[in-house]
């Protein structure tokens, strides 16, 4: 218990009233001195801040963001393959699992392939989404994730909150050993692959290993690799 209020009657000194005020003025002046004359530790983890001199705990929000806890469900993204096309195979699992029914998928067949489908259109209405994460759980291809560590940014129009595939498909590509497209060559031309990668919006700022939901998978490393290859991503 940090503050214990001692409700005793004031003693003679306290009844004079002014001495206690002087003491309190000293306290406030010290605080002022510390905060005005020393700079703030901008560590976003406020509990870790060095508050020996400046005691300010403010987080300058849009410029400084606090790291979210592990497993934070941020804005959705559609995970790309290394060639930039979505991992999604338009199986409708996520749309079926979604309790808010806010995922719309228009499937199309991959040309020359009798089985594989891809999402021609993939739309999430972020205003209806209840951020439950069921879509992520339901996906058999690890194609939809909420690991961006971002909120849906505010918009002036409702339409702005409806995310289609162009806005969803972004971030570091993900690959697994047994992914079928790794054993057969990509159907996309090199130029198309490059264009795909360039078109994908760069990955958000707050993404880090904590947010990745696959053990052993490092968004940070993949982002760094992508950057080394000279592709988008901050």
């Amino acid at each position, binding site marked *: 218990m940090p503050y214990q209020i*001692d*409700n*005793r*009657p*004031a*003693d*003679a*000194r*306290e*009844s*004079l*009233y*002014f*001495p206690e*005020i*002087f*003491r*309190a*003025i000293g306290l*406030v*002046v010290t*605080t*002022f001195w510390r*905060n*005005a*004359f*020393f*700079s*703030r530790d901008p560590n976003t983890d406020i509990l870790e801040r060095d508050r020996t001199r400046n*005691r*300010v*705990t*403010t987080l*300058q929000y849009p410029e400084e963001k606090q790291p979210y806890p592990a497993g934070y469900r941020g804005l959705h993204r559609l995970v790309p393959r290394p060639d930039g096309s979505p991992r999604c195979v338009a199986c409708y699992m996520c749309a079926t699992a979604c309790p808010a029914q806010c995922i719309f998928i228009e499937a199309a067949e991959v040309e020359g392939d009798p089985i594989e489908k891809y999402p021609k259109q993939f739309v999430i209405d972020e205003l209806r989404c209840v951020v439950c994460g069921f879509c992520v759980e339901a996906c058999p291809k690890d194609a939809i994730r909420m690991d961006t560590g971002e909120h849906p940014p505010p918009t002036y129009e409702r339409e702005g909150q409806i995310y289609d595939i162009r806005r969803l498909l972004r971030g570091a590509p993900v690959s697994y050993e047994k992914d079928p497209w790794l054993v057969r060559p990509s159907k996309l031309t090199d130029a198309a692959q490059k264009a795909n990668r360039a078109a994908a919006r760069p990955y958000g700022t707050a993404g880090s290993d904590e947010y990745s939901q696959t053990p052993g998978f490092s968004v940070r490393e993949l982002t760094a690799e992508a950057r080394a290859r000279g592709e988008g991503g901050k």
Partner: protein
Amino acid sequence: MKRFVGMWLVIGAVLVGLVGLFYAFYALAALGAKGAVALGFPGFYGSAIVNAVTLMAVTLMTVAALLTVAERKWSAAMQDRIGANRILVGGKFALGGVPYLLADALKMLTKEAIYPVARSRFLFEAAPVLAFAPTFALFAVVPVGPEVRALGQTVGMWVANPDAGLLWVFALAGISVYGTTLAGWASNSRVGMLGAVRASAQMISYEVSLGMSLVGVMIAYRTVSLQQMAIAQGADVLGPIPALGLLLQPLGFLVFFTSSFAETKRAPFDLPEGESEIVGYFLEYSGMKFGLLFLAEFVEVVILAAVTTAVFLGGWHPIFFEGWLKANLDPMLFGAVCAAAFLGKLILLTWIQLVIRWLLPRFRYDQIQGLCWKLLLPGAILNVFVTGAAVLVDPSLQVLAWIGVAEIIAIFGITLAVSKPKAAHGGHDHGDAHGHAAHAAGH
């Protein structure tokens, strides 16, 4: 560490800037005096008119306006916050929140003025002016700088130098209660009226102790002219220590500062505008009329600091190295340094007022009256008698200074003598926290 150095650089730059500014003001005043002489009037007519512009319209209003920024930033520093810094000039520089001043002014000026239907038409318009004008005019008698010879003229840094300086202060402080009272009454709102009644009761009570607290100073310096008082405070009394009002009259200072704090109607004495209960006497005001009432409060803060500086903190005396400065500097520059010292003290005092304003919660009504009548007024009366006796015994003020030293030591001692918290004995309500006249005598 960079910030530490930077802050001191800023403070230094402000002081140097003030010296430069007042150098220019002295020059302007001298030019004004010259012009008046050329037209066949006494020289001080011209310098008074120029000073009215430079001191009252420029210096006072700038300081008062900057106080709105200071209120944000300083209070933030006192409360472990950062304070207003979202207006970025050039997308980058917050400039210490100063641009908020412009935003504030723009807001006040362009806001819609709403008029209550049942208002008293004339008084509703007149009240903000009545609240603002007397406090503003108070600054006229404040001696900001010494009298020096500049450009062949003898000019002083004050607008008026009436012999009845302090009485002018009392008179105008007394009038300013009309503004608030009429504001509440003319808006024909019960709640506004409540605020006005509270304001008048509070201000009239505190005027008594305000007046009493300065009687000691008048006795000690044998004058009521603020200019004479400022000069008298330069004389050495205890060895090299000058006869500052603070040294001679610590108790008087305490009572005066507290009473004038109550006159400004700001927290902890902001009962007339208790937002959580009655909003206050300016409830019905909006737009720039509210702005004027609001500004009057800030001007009052500056005035209070100015009068306190002039009476208790040695006026324009820089105190340190004064002899050297006087001997080595060109008189105009010496005057400018003195005036800058005055402004420095003034800013320090406004800062202390803000500290207190953000430190203490609002008093209850009976606590306000109790503090005034049971603690401050007896203290002030005691001070008058002690001062009178001391001056009677020793007109060279030495005895008074020693009494002052003893008082300061006593205040320090009592402040530092923090008793160990005793074992709590249950939830015993102690109600009135301070009103003990018996202890005031021992103070």
